[in-house]
């Protein structure tokens, strides 16, 4: 009886250790050290504003860049223009419609090495119920113990139905989504 209990306890400990190892390997994006922003142009003035909340995973192995995968979810309601009335506007139906579409997402489908520090990821970009295949070049940067993935993805507002057309002569169609994503180091 006693022996069986101990055995079970040992198995449980082992199981927990194994699970925590998997979790550590899969710690995901280190939010405080990562950044995703969108830069739009209003009357030729470039304005950059951050998304405060996002999550996801990037798996990249230098010995097999083509096997890299990325999966990112951004909370559209976390876009911060630095002013409450503009933040309320961008969450409305004509723009992000954050009530109906709280997340914008990217799911990679393939990757291709360009150089030892650069690779290209192709995948689906989902915004506001629409999906488009995009390819984005990613630069690999050392970030302390971890690795950072940097890049810029141009997005057409029209392609995803973002924005009331009455704004079109004030705000350009193209918005540049910049990202600096750091994987949480497995030792944490």
């Amino acid at each position: 009886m006693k022996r069986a209990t101990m055995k079970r306890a040992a198995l449980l400990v082992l199981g927990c250790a194994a699970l925590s190892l998997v979790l550590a390997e899969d710690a995901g994006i280190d939010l405080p050290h990562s950044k995703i922003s969108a830069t739009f142009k209003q009357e030729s003035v470039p304005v950059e504003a951050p998304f405060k909340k996002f999550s996801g995973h990037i798996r990249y192995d230098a010995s097999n860049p083509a096997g890299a995968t990325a999966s990112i979810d951004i909370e559209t309601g976390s876009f911060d223009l630095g002013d409450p009335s503009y933040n309320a506007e961008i969450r409305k139906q004509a723009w992000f419609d954050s009530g109906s579409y709280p997340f914008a997402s990217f799911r990679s489908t393939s990757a291709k090495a360009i150089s030892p520090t650069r690779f290209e990821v192709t995948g689906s970009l989902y915004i506001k119920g629409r999906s488009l295949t995009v390819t984005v070049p990613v630069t690999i940067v050392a970030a302390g113990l971890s690795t950072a993935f940097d890049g810029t993805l141009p997005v057409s507002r029209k392609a995803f139905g973002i924005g009331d057309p009455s704004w079109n002569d004030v705000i350009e169609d193209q918005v540049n989504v910049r990202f600096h994503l750091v994987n949480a180091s497995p030792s944490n």
Partner: protein
Amino acid sequence: MSSNPHASTIVAGSQTHYTRTAVGLHWLIAALIVVALVMGWTMTDMAVSPQKLKIYNWHKWVGITVLWLAALRILWRVTHRPPDMVTMPAWQRIAAHALHGVLYLLMLAQPISGWIYSNAAGFPIVYLRLIPLPNLVAKNPQLAETWQEIHETLGLVLVIVVVLHLLAALKHAFIDKDDTMRRILRWLP
């Protein structure tokens, strides 16, 4: 001063008016400041709309125009002697000079405070959609709040000083009935 025979010689000469350039700059800047003030007060109370954004940009462009015109005007002022003031008590002459000094300062400080505020709030200035101006400060929400207040307060001070300036000019024209107005309104009879 005016009892000085040399001074009266100058007044009797061509020096009864400001130069055409000085007069032109005075009225152009005055008009642009009024436009900037009216835009500043109305745009801040508008609901979010494309028109609001447009007026914000026009406000900044008008303000930046005031800034470089004021710089030009100060340069002109220090290189061209203005006509002597009409005869008046010393305290009035001193008050007039002080008020003019404050006006020159505000013509520079008001647009510069707006420029700093705009940059701190995360908005670079692209003058007339053509010329990107350098950022005076980096984006910083706390700094933006401070400079928004400075810009707003300076705007109020500017209005007060302009009204005093205007009242003094009207006093010269209608109570003293002297030649002060004619110095800056060359085409008056």
